[in-house]
Every structure is written in structure tokens, then in C-alpha cells.
């Protein structure tokens, strides 16, 4: 199984500002003082050794994750703006020739999880076939509404690929049984659903957008059970713990510290933080991650999950 991240930003696309780029350049040049960077290769080596948040960005596109099983079947989770780039990438495969087949499953239909849909080029190519799944009702109507002529020039009907809409069941088999997908309702305004995808003996859980209103008892345990022993847990860590529990209570998102507690209790292998807060610059997201690592440090080494910050282009091979 391969899990690839095309959009990891929460709530709204977040392009880097000129000020942010300038600040990164200043930091990089200050860090280069005293180094011999007289030939180009030395410059390239120096830049590529910088941490991602200094040489680039975690990414500004909203939620989109690609999951492939070993047979190469394509499951896309959410159609945030990251799906546009995925669509470009797919054009060099059978999807560019109208011979592609894939599935898109939606956690929910908040803007940041559907707004890339009208820009997903493989959907405009006749012959491609997509199965579209959601736990929410009337998925087709919701997508059509987003592309009503008042809001967008290309209607859903202009997307010439073959589209079949499905009501997601608690557990479903996709691709003739080569992938199993289970759903769980999460606490989020208007509801969101987490998905556990299993294939080839591996499992990934996509758990965004979600707030954890209680951190104990049966409430806690149902999430621990759903995340149990996942190879990858993709987790909504938009807020700091204080924001999640105090300032932004009931806003529908969670924090890295709660994620770590869940991942430890569920014995998750790798945890990926996503749905980054749009007002947080890259270095603040890095700081939150380092704080989370300090929190994780207190857990015995044998019980610690691997924890990473999700970024655009990141791929995890299982």
C-alpha cells in the first residue's frame, strides 16, 4: 500500500506570502554564513539539507490523499485543492487516455474537502470511470450545487467521465474486494467520517476533520478501537491542545497531543499530522511538532508511534 499526500492544509488554501518566502531566504542565507558555497553543487547540497519548513513549505493545498494497493487500484480520499495536482499527475497514466478507473471517498463536503473537484481533469475525459462514495446523503446534489453556473462555469454534467455515486456503508469492499473501507462518524459540525482502508495486509486510517469531546471512557475507546494497530493514522492536528480544549472548543478539530495519546493507546505504527491551521506559518507548525515530540518523549520507547508532519508530496510505502 502507498499513501501519498496531495493536500494537507485545513480550512482554506494557504499560498505562501511574499513576506514568508523572504523570511525563509533570510534564514537560509544567515545559516550559510561562513560556509564555502562557491560552487553550485555546494549550494544545492546546503539547500537540500535544510529542514523542509525552511527550504519549502508543508503545503497550502487543502485535503487530498491518494491510497494505492499493490495492484495499483486508486482510492482518493477527499477532493480539496490538492486533487488538482493529483489530476495533472494522473494524465500521464491510463487516466490521460480515458481508460482510468478509480474511486473517490469523501470524509464530508465542507468546502476545503470538495473545492478541488471541479479542477480534477481526469473527470473531464470521456471513458474514465469513477466511483464516488460518501456517508452523507445526496453527494451528487452537493457536488452539482458547488458547480452551479452561478458559482462555476463548468457544471457537473460537463465532466464527461463515467461517475457512479454510492452511499457509503459502515464497511465496503472496493475494487472487487482488493480494498476494504470502513467508516466511523466523527464529531465535527455537520458530521465528518473517518475511513479505515485495508489492503494487502496493511491499513491506513484517515481521521480528519474531528474533535474529541471527551478523552476517557467508552467515547475514547471507540476511537482507540477504530485506530487499533493501523500502519498509518492521518490525524487532524489543526490546533494546539489549549485551542482544542479552551479557545476553539466545538470548532470541530483536534490537536497533536490528543493524537499522540490516541496513537499510543491504539498502538499505531505511524502518525501523520494534517489539516494544518491556515493562519500558522510553517515554522509555527514545526514548533507545534517539536512540542508534540517532547510530549511523546515521556512515553516508553517501545510504545511510541513514529510521528511526522504531513506535507505535500509526502509518500508512505507500506
Amino acid at each position: 500500500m502507498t499513501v501519498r499526500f496531495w493536500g494537507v492544509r485545513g480550512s482554506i488554501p494557504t499560498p505562501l506570502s511574499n513576506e514568508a518566502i523572504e523570511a525563509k531566504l533570510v534564514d537560509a542565507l544567515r545559516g550559510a554564513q561562513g560556509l564555502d558555497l562557491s560552487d553550485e553543487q555546494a549550494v544545492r547540497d546546503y539547500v537540500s539539507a535544510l529542514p523542509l519548513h525552511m527550504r519549502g513549505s508543508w503545503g497550502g493545498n487543502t485535503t487530498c490523499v491518494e491510497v494505492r494497493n499493490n495492484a495499483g487500484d486508486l482510492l482518493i480520499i477527499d477532493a480539496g485543492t490538492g486533487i488538482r495536482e493529483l489530476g495533472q499527475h494522473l494524465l500521464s497514466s491510463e487516466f490521460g487516455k480515458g481508460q482510468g478507473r478509480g474511486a473517490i471517498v469523501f470524509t464530508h463536503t465542507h468546502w476545503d474537502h470538495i473545492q478541488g473537484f471541479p479542477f480534477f481533469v481526469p473527470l473531464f475525459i470521456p471513458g474514465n470511470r469513477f466511483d464516488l462514495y460518501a456517508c452523507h446523503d445526496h453527494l451528487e446534489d452537493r457536488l452539482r450545487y458547488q458547480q452551479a453556473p452561478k458559482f462555476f462555469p463548468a457544471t457537473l454534467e460537463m465532466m464527461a467521465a463515467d461517475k457512479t455515486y454510492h452511499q457509503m456503508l459502515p464497511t465496503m469492499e472496493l475494487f472487487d474486494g482488493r480494498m476494504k473501507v470502513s467508516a466511523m462518524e466523527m464529531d465535527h459540525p455537520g458530521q465528518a467520517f473517518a475511513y479505515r482502508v485495508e489492503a494487502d495486509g496493511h491499513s491506513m486510517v484517515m481521521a480528519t476533520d474531528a474533535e474529541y469531546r471527551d478523552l476517557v471512557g467508552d467515547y475514547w475507546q471507540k476511537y482507540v478501537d477504530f485506530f487499533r494497530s493501523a500502519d498509518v493514522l492521518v490525524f487532524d492536528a489543526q490546533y494546539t491542545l489549549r485551542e482544542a480544549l479552551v479557545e476553539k472548543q466545538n470548532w470541530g478539530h483536534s490537536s497533536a497531543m490528543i493524537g499522540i495519546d490516541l496513537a499510543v493507546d491504539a498502538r499505531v505504527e505511524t502518525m501523520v499530522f494534517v489539516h494544518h491551521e491556515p493562519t500558522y506559518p510553517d515554522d509555527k507548525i514545526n514548533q507545534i511538532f517539536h512540542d508534540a515530540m517532547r510530549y511523546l518523549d515521556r512515553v516508553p520507547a517501545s510504545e511510541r508511534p513514529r510521528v511526522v508532519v504531513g506535507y505535500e508530496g509526502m509518500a508512505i510505502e507500506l
Partner: protein
Amino acid sequence: MTTEVVQQGPAIIARVQGRVDAYTSPALDVALATLPGAGQHLILDLSGADYLSSAGLRVLLGLAKRARAEGFQLRLSGLGPAVAEVLEIAGFVPLFEIRDTEASALAELAAGG
């Protein structure tokens, strides 16, 4: 996790021992639910607490909210480095009155501080 409750002067002292996490924090919540009595203040001594998870932090937060609503004074005392670090990481330090020791918290409350 255990909670020992003693009264000393104007304060009820609750001494927490052990690990406060998703599985033990409900017991702490129950132990603290009826504390302090009318006209009393509360010192939560954490010198015996060696591990605090987000669930434990949530209990502390609930206690702070209740202190404001019910008008009693709350002091945390005796935070070991591990517990102090978790409060700091969570950004919770400004939400609490934290004293080094149970004795210093008690002296302050006795002095009407």
C-alpha cells in the same frame, strides 16, 4: 492512580499519586467532584503524579473552570519536571496558579492571598 484528601487550615489538599491518563483520570474527576467544601480553597498537589496525559490536563481544566464558577481558590503544587513540562507544552501554565510546594500554597491561602 490514587488521590489522598486532607484538610489543613483553610484548604483542602488533594494529593495525586501515579499516572493520570485516559484510563485513570475519571477516578480523579470523581475524587475532586465534591471538593472543596463551602468556604474552603483547594490545593492539588501533583508531587506524586509521574505522568499526565491530555485526559489529565482536561481534568485540571475542568477544575479551573469550576473554581472560577464557584468562587474558590485553586493552587497546583509540587509539579515534577515531567508534569511541569506537559503543562508548558499544552500552554496551560497561564491558566493556573502554580506554587512550588504544598506548604507554600498553604501559607499563601492561610494569609488570605
